[in-house]
C-alpha cells in the first residue's frame, strides 16, 4: 500500500450563478485587470489516502465526491492522485 495525496477540485456547474466569482471579477476589473473575462470560485480539498494504486485512490475519492464532497445538483468535481514528492512508501 502506498500513500497518495489526492486533490479534489470542486467547481460550480458552468452556467450556474457564481456570486463569489462575480464579486472577484469586479474587484479584478477595478484593479485594471481588464482582460479577465470570467472568474469562477470553487474549493480544493486534499486527502491523504492509503491505496494500492493511484487509480484505486482516485476511484475511492470519486465515490466520496458523489456522496459528500460535491453537491451533484450544483457542482462538478475533478480528482487527481499523486504520490508524495518525497516518495514516502511504507
Amino acid at each position, binding site marked *: 500500500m502506498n500513500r497518495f495525496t489526492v486533490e479534489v477540485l470542486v467547481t460550480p456547474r458552468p452556467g450556474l450563478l457564481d456570486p463569489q466569482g462575480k464579486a472577484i471579477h469586479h474587484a479584478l476589473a477595478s484593479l485594471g485587470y481588464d482582460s479577465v473575462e470570467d472568474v469562477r470560485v470553487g474549493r480544493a480539498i486534499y486527502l491523504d489516502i492509503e491505496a494500492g494504486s493511484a487509480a484505486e485512490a482516485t476511484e475511492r475519492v470519486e465515490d466520496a465526491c458523489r456522496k459528500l464532497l460535491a*453537491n451533484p445538483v*450544483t457542482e462538478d468535481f475533478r480528482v487527481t492522485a499523486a504520490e508524495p514528492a518525497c516518495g514516502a512508501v511504507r
Partner: protein
Amino acid sequence: MNVAVITFPGSNCDQDCFRSVELAGGSPRYVWHREQSLGDADAVIVPGGFAHGDYLRPGAIARFSPIMGAVIAFARDGGLVVGICNGFQVLCEAGLLPGALLRNESMRFQSHDCALRVERSGTPFTRDYRKGRVIRMPLSHADGNYYADPETLAALEATGRVVFRYSDARGTVSAEANPNGSLNHIAGIVNADGNVLGMMPHPDRAIEEALGSVDGLPLFTSLVGSGAGTAAHTEVA
C-alpha cells in the same frame, strides 16, 4: 401530536421550534442528532442554525448524522417533515427535496423581515392559511438562493409544489422583493408526495406578538392539526 425537533451541534432554532409546537397545541420533544430513532413522533422538524458549522456546504455533513437515516425513512413512509432555513438545506442535501440552496446573490448574510405570498393552502403545513395571503416573518441566512435545474423547476411549478414565494407587502413578486436571488422567487417547496416541506424564512420566529408577528403560527397549528389522531381536520382545503 408528538413532534420531534432534531438538534444538531450548531442548531440554534431548536428552542424556537419547540415553543412553536407547544403554542400550536402539540407535544414537542428534542431528538439529538446522535440518536437513531424518532420514537413515537408523528412529525419531524429540522430546525435552523449552522449544523456542524455549515462546513463543506450547509447541511452536507448534517445529512449524514445518525438520526437522518430515521428521518429519511420516516419521510419515505409519508411522515410529515418540516425543514426551516438550515433544515431546508439539510433536507435538500438528504435528497428529500429537490434542488439546492446557493449563496445569496448579494453575497451578504441577509437578516430581516420578509413578506411571503402563500401559494398553496391545501398542504398539511398550510391548511390554516388562506391561499394568496401575504404573511410576514424574519429570514436569516447566507445561502438561501434556491436553485433547481430547468426540468425540476418546471415540474415544481406544474404540480403546484411552490408553497411560499417572496413578495412585497401587497403580494406582488419582483426582483426587489427577492432577498437572495432564488429562482422564481421560491421561499418554500414541498416534495412530490406533499409530506415534506422546506422553507428558508422563519415561521418559528413569528409566533408571538412580542416577536413582531404571529404569521408563522398557522404553519404549526396546521402541522399539529394534521396528526393521525385528528382525522376530522385532514380535509384538504
